[in-house]
């Protein structure tokens, strides 16, 4: 077990708290940076997708995991990011500007969808965002002149200041760099007053407002930040697929995005990355397993069944997700042999005061 002696408050602001942190994150970074040398084409693609989904996961985590607002419509922000990028690239706008616009445009839309969120809660908010998803999907399909409707849009490889990122490795480094930047931005936001206000809203709106947190302002901001990150993810997603059409941004995509945060672990940024990795790897594992199973056990819809089953099992047995499971394992080793079974069990809350709204 490691004991950290704290001598000043600045120490708690450091990102790297001890040498173990530095070692493991450094090692992870090295392995990821060296990926083009150790990974084949196939694994590289998977890594790119994991990066893209991680960025989206961060976005959704800020909204759902930290501010406590459900969204079943995040595929819409993904679509807005992807289409903004596609259209601006076609118009010859440089990548740095177009991806910024993808983020800002998504954020603007996030603010619009955030406004009903001020009045809606829980399941009702889920329904409203779900409707928003359907509306955006429908607009993209119908607005043929702008979006090409069902014929979709093609994207060329990213052009970064005249440097065309055509190879897998180049695009992978772009995704990785943006993932790290987004991750740092999220960490920074969450350890600042704004992030704490988000958590306050998640845990008790009434006492957040009694502490001076402007609920309307911060909820809207959470939607904006979340949508902006998803927009960035969407732009990369578009480039990765090179072809986008409305059927990539349906409700099922939104549910897949929600799955990332739930499987990864609600309320942990690590969870977004783990969840992203999980839902990218799982379909591959399933298709490998399919080859081994007799045909009768491997129907066409196997993937959806497994996804649903995994989600249900996680919600029942590990509500803290993959990251929560990792925390338990780590604690078990740290405290060996003193780990108790109930250590992570969350106590029932005491009676809440009268709910005023």
């Amino acid at each position, binding site marked *: 077990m490691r004991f950290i002696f704290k001598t000043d*408050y*600045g120490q*708690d*602001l450091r990102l790297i708290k001890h040498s173990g942190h530095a070692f493991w994150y450094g090692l992870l970074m090295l392995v990821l940076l060296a990926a083009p040398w150790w990974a084949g084409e196939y694994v590289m693609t998977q890594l790119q997708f994991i990066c893209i989904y991680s960025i989206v996961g961060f976005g959704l985590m800020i909204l759902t995991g930290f501010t406590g607002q459900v969204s079943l419509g995040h595929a819409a922000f993904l679509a807005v990011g992807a289409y903004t990028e596609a259209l601006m690239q076609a118009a010859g706008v440089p990548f740095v500007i177009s991806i910024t616009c993808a983020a800002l445009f998504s954020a603007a839309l996030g603010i619009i969808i955030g406004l009903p969120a001020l009045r809606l809660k829980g399941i009702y908010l889920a329904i409203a965002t779900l409707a928003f998803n359907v509306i955006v999907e429908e607009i993209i399909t119908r607005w043929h002149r702008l979006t090409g409707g069902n014929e979709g849009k093609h994207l060329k490889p990213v052009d970064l200041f005249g440097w065309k990122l055509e190879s897998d490795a180049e695009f992978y480094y772009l995704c990785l760099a943006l993932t790290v930047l987004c991750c740092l*931005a999220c960490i*920074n*936001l969450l*350890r*600042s*007053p*704004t*992030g*704490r*206000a988000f*958590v*306050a809203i*998640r*845990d*008790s709106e*009434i*006492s*957040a*407002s*009694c*502490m*001076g*947190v*402007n*609920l309307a302002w911060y909820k809207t*901001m959470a939607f904006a930040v979340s949508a902006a990150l998803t927009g960035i993810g969407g732009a990369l997603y578009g480039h990765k697929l090179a072809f986008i059409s409305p059927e990539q941004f349906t409700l099922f995509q939104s549910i897949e995005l929600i799955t990332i945060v739930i499987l990864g672990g609600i*309320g942990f940024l690590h969870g977004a990355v783990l969840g992203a990795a999980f839902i990218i790897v799982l379909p591959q594992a399933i298709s490998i397993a399919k080859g081994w199973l007799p045909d009768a056990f491997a129907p066409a819809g196997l993937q959806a069944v497994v996804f649903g089953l995994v989600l249900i099992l996680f919600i029942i047995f590990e509500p803290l997700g993959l990251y929560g499971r990792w925390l338990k394992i780590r604690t078990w080793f740290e405290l060996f042999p003193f780990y108790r079974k109930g250590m992570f069990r*969350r*106590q029932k*809350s*005491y*009676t*809440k*005061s*009268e709910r*005023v*709204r």
Partner: protein
Amino acid sequence: MSFFKVENLGIRFGGVVAVDGVGFEVNRGEVYTIIGPNGAGKTTIFNLVGLLYPATSGRIVFEDRELTGLAPHSVAELGIARTFQNIELFEHATVLQNLLIGRHRHRSTSLWQELLFTRAVQRAEVAARGVVEQVIDFLELAKYRDSLVVGLPYGVRKVVELGRALATEPKLLLLDEPSSGLNPEETDDMAFWIEDIKKHLGITVLMVEHDMNLVSRVSDRVLALNLGKVIAQGTPAEVQAHPAVIEAYLGKAA
């Protein structure tokens, strides 16, 4: 100029008049207590002052500023902090984070600065931490600093909530039954703290309380309420001896 004044305050929920024409004045630096049997409307008054309910009638004036009509969060910005009868903490955050949220009204940084965690944000964070650590010292919460609230016993949560209110550095502190659910020893600590808050931190306290020992020990003045109406006002001893108060609690002699 009065520090805090409530005039003719009233609210009705449908046919029920929960608070009916209540008026009182709190002077700077005193501990003012509202007592009354269950359902007298004490907490409702707090919720009216916190603007969680819109008052049907009357006005609330804090340092010559009219509160009625403002948004709930601006009450805290003006320097009024409160605790809740049944504890409303941020359960999945640590004690330290809970107290830091108390610093929200003193924040000075913008979203962009925070995304980059600039020097200004770092300085503000260290400063906020400094204030919060003083509160932690004051309330002896040091050993719970990094625990999640969700795992803490009731008595400690009560103190954390007091700490969170103190971290806002309020001018007026509203305490909703600070001793409810506490054992005699914890209640005793609470009484010490309330006295210290008044004497050393110079914060005015408006409190709702049932425990008459605590009330007479710390209060300068007491207001007795029954069925939404003021029935007596004065020093703790005066109010306790007031016939209307005795009647409200014990009923009329046969």
